């Protein structure tokens, strides 16, 4: 994945806020990348840009060598579906569906029957939810919901899994389990993970850390950030 001169400006004139300022970096396949920074530093905005959930004011995002700048809304949706997996802070499962249906959903959106049902079950087994397949998503615990969300993020074999504060809503023991699960999946599947967090310590050793401060990114852990997290 390649970001080039990515800039995001909200508002105009006096209300103008530069959330990201000329950000450029790349991520290699299989890397487990942490994006850290203070609240309001621009890390969620950065993740939204990478996830094509928001459009940059300037600059470009390329994934798998494919520039996404000029894609139409439908093409962006298809791109998100095939190339990106999402894990959100509150799991964001659809309460009306079962765990299995939630995990199957990304593979059903292209209306492509070729993706096997068994794939979803296999991933749910990997995340330890094999006995929760047919439970309604709002009937499982927060930790289980986040596991299901990880499974949903992985089901289409995406190029990158983007996780926005995936442990932010969990107790410390469950959060640790979720971190271990993501690391395990990254290793087993050679899956790229980009994780936004302000709980740096929960993640221990990772391949790479990017710090966001005032809309700028820095390679490695910024001292000020460490002071905040210690």
């Amino acid at each position, binding site marked *: 994945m390649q970001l080039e001169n990515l800039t995001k400006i909200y508002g105009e004139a006096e209300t103008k806020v530069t959330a990201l300022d000329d950000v450029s970096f790349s991520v290699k396949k299989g890397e487990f990348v942490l994006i850290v920074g203070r609240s309001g530093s621009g890390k969620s905005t950065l993740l939204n840009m990478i996830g094509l959930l928001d459009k940059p004011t300037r600059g470009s995002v390329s994934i798998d060598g494919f520039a996404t700048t000029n894609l139409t809304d439908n093409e962006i*949706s298809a791109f998100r579906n*095939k190339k990106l997996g*999402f894990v959100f802070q509150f799991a964001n499962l*659809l309460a009306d569906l079962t765990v299995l249906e939630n995990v199957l959903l990304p593979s059903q*959106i292209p209306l492509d029957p070729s993706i096997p049902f068994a794939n979803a079950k296999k991933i749910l087994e990997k995340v330890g939810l094999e006995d929760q397949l047919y439970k309604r998503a709002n009937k499982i615990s927060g930790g289980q919901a986040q596991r299901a969300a990880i499974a949903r993020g992985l089901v289409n074999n995406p190029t990158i899994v983007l996780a926005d504060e995936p442990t932010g809503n969990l107790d410390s023991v469950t959060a640790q389990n979720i971190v271990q699960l993501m690391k395990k999946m990254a290793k087993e599947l050679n899956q790229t993970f980009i994780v936004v967090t302000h709980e740096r310590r929960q993640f221990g050793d990772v391949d790479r850390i990017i710090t966001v401060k005032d809309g700028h990114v820095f390679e490695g852990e910024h001292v000020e950030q460490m002071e905040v997290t210690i």
Partner: protein
Amino acid sequence: MDYRFNLAKRMLFNKRGSLIGAVLAVSIGILVINVNFVIFQGIYDAIIRDMSDYRFGDIYVYNDESSTIEKSDIVFINWFERMPNVEAATPRLEGSATAETRILGQAHEKFNVPVLGVDPISDIRTSRIHETVGEGQYVYSRNSIVVGESVASDLGGCSQDGFFMSGGTDPTVTGGKAISECQPVRVGDSVKLIITDQWGIDQKKRFVVTGISGTAGGQGFDRSVIIHIDTLRDMLDRSGESRSIMVRLQESTNAYEAAQIKNQFLAAFPNDNLKAETIEESAESTLSGFRSGIAMINLIGYFGMGSSAFAILTIQMMLVNSKTREIGIMRAIGARRKDILIIFIMQGMIIGAMGAGAGTALGLGYTTYAKITNMEFQGSLALEVNYNWQKIGETAFLAFILAMIASIYPSYRATKKQPVEAMRSV
């Protein structure tokens, strides 16, 4: 199953209150139209039925230029009864008379009444007026008379100090006498008719009341008297003449075949100045105003259905608002705007289908109840209830389409939500 349908169904069924509200809105709209149809179309059809049964038959023949048909009715009746779809035909003659009653030996009441002359043998096969004789029996001899219920009442009176008081059975006319003290003309009483013949000479004849005729809604001959056609011919000095020929077709005969028989008849007798009408044509002038009324009432029903569409629109807007976060999630994991649109339009279709089903079932239930119980209102004529499958289908289909259309705007609103903003919604 398409995941969009599955999702639409689950989202809807997990909001039972909204689902029930929306389905009720649709089904009540359909029920109102069905009830309107049963009542007003039922009254309309009942009037046609009674006009056909008592007065016009399925085909009604009369002289276009003269008050009577001078040629012998036997010629026409034989022609009609040779046709394969004709059940029977009968001549009728009409006139007016002054009726006098004598009760307890006293001359009692005098009225002008319309007189209908019937051939009792063929009339029983052609019309159903004989079935309206609730007391006594139909005309069976040349001196028997069937008196309409209203005429019987008007010719009756109330007792006062051993004497009869004229003024019918209406206590407001007879000085506040209780109805129990008054009595109408009854079977066995005698009635004298004075009829002015075609030469202006009064002809008098005394008749014995053999029956009292009454119909629900007064569509029959409640305000007339019925006598033998030959007696009336004699009194009018119109031997062999008739006012009209009433023709009854077999039940399986449709309106097109009736029109064909009518046309064949007119072609067979081109020089007799005859006019023939099917029942639809005979009833046209009577029912044209009523039809406008039905159209107006149906319009109110369709306005009701329009209100149901607004109810669905409101409920769907609430559903979309309550599912904002889900829409954001769907968009984030790759659903296109079109997919979101389809999900919510499918919800409208589910509401429409369920509402149309429930409303049609309720409507059919009401129709069946009306048919089984021969529904009538306050002693008026019994509704003629029919299952109009085309109308039932059209109403259900219209309700379904309206529910779907009402879902388009909320669905469109749903597609406009940006994933990031939508997911922030709680």
